[in-house]
């Protein structure tokens, strides 16, 4: 006997939808209020000459953008930001993968090592920055102390006065913080890989390097991609660590695009210009976001 439940079906569904929307409402209000609305006003402000005070905003059309794009400083900064992103993320993924593989081959103490990895990742970014700043200190720093005791330098070196060196040392600090993140993700992914494939490859006479290259790496690709994209988006807008280690110096040598936006807006008071800059950063990161969501958002399949 089949009686279709006629009456309740439609109204139940409606009621469900309503409940769902009600549960969603607080989140949507918050997100629209503190994220979407500000993004839209930033975009709006980018067409004005504006100040943080009560002054009048003067419409300049695309003036801010035109000025920025014509400014060599802007392009050097973009280049520097890409340098930071590519070098730091590249090294982090390579070293992180190495560490993950190492832990996964279970050397003595690998569990302790995996636990220890959590520490650099958990140390707050600002603490990480001050710690390295102190290590790099020209007069009393541990880097100078170590290198001179090893006989590698004759006298203490003021590391942070050379722009390129300063940038690379900021990258080292960033690597210290982020390698553990990547290593932990990749190690977890490695641990779930089926052993059979690797054994089969071994039986077929593939050496360790071949097995890594043609068996494990392809299987790890999704995890590597996740790490790569999360880190790239983060690295592209690096601010905190530069603020504490070099404050953008020497001679603007470590100013990245977020730092430039900060300087323009809050040091030079060019709010319109700062807004245009931050809109450009959003464009760059949204381009990365597109890739990010395409590869991350897979509700039916998670590893």
């Amino acid at each position: 006997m089949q009686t279709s439940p006629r009456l309740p079906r439609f109204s139940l569904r409606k009621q469900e939808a309503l409940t769902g929307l009600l549960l969603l409402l607080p989140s949507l209000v918050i997100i629209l209020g503190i994220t979407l609305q500000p993004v839209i006003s930033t975009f709006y402000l980018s067409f004005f000459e504006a100040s943080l005070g009560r002054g009048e905003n003067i419409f300049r059309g695309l003036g801010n953008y035109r000025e920025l794009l014509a400014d060599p400083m802007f392009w050097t900064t973009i280049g520097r930001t890409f340098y930071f992103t590519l070098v730091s993320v590249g090294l982090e993924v390579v070293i992180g993968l190495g560490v993950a593989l190492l832990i996964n081959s279970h050397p003595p103490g690998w569990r302790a090592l995996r636990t220890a990895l959590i520490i650099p990742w958990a140390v707050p970014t600002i603490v990480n920055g001050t710690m390295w700043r102190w290590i790099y200190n020209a007069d009393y720093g541990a880097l100078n102390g170590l290198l001179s005791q090893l006989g590698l330098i004759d006298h203490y070196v003021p590391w942070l006065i050379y722009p390129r060196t300063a940038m690379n040392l900021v990258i080292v600090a960033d690597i210290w913080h982020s390698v553990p993140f990547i290593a932990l993700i990749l190690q977890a992914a490695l641990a779930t890989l089926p052993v059979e494939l690797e054994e089969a490859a071994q039986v077929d006479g593939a050496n360790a390097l071949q097995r890594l290259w043609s068996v494990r790496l392809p299987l790890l690709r999704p995890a590597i991609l996740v790490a790569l994209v999360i880190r790239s988006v983060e690295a592209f807008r690096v601010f905190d660590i530069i603020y504490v280690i070099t404050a953008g110096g020497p001679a603007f040598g470590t100013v990245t695009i977020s730092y430039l936006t900060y300087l323009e807006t809050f040091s030079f008071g060019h709010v319109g210009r700062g807004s245009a800059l931050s809109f450009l950063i959003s464009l760059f990161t949204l381009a990365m976001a597109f890739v990010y969501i395409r590869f991350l958002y897979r509700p039916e399949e998670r590893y």
Partner: protein
Amino acid sequence: MRSYRRLLRKLALFLITVPVWLFILLPIVWLVISSVSTRAELLSVPIHWIPEHPTLRNYIDILTPGTVASEVARTFKATLRNSLIIATSVTAISLVVGSLAAYALVRINTPFRSGVLIGIMSTRMIPEVSLVIPLYILAARLRLLNTPMVLIATYLCFALPFAIWLMAAFFQTIPMELEDAALIDGCSRLKILFQIILPISTPGLVSTAIFVFMTAWDEFFFALIFTSTEAAKTVPVAIAEFTGRYVVDVTAMMTGGVLAAIPPVLLALIFQRYIVSGLTSGAVKA
């Protein structure tokens, strides 16, 4: 022969781990050593790796107002309290509001739900710099600058999407049957969420709470822009001020650093297994 080779392999592997260990631990060890050294020893050449007179003086100085001259050190305790209040409030709000939303997005046939989920996720791609100017202007107008309130509100812009994503990922792992039975019994959705889903979601709630707390504790940019006095200043801002241009107060910098690192490091170590599962469910701060 075979066991000999195995031993050799073990030894070789162990030797490779040594530089990794050193790279991870040396900076931290140096941070801790610096925090228990006297200023005179820290500022000596050649460097004193092991302090001759280890002391907890720096900790007493930084935590007991009035004992040192440094203005920043005096306010450090206040900033610790602010950070704690702000990070805890942000965590509590995002857990409550976020799990409602996550439930609506994962388990209820809410209209446009996949679009909304993608939209919420993509807000993570918006850089903080592009929110800060309008938020600053708004906060100034509402006279909220330099209050914990403004940081709690703005931190939700990254904490909430984060919480929704992690909770949604967790809710998806809970078998449907549990709810179906309750639904047939005529339970309301809210009742199901609070009496069935949330109680068995403790691991998800814990890992979400840790991630949100750590991110809020870590946040620097908004705090730098929105706060200026001990009424609302957070620990990262206080530490950054130790590196101020003219006076570098090394001992305070290192001691403050250790104190600021203790809560997140302890949390992460205690809840290790949640951290790794949280990391792999994606979309977590780097």
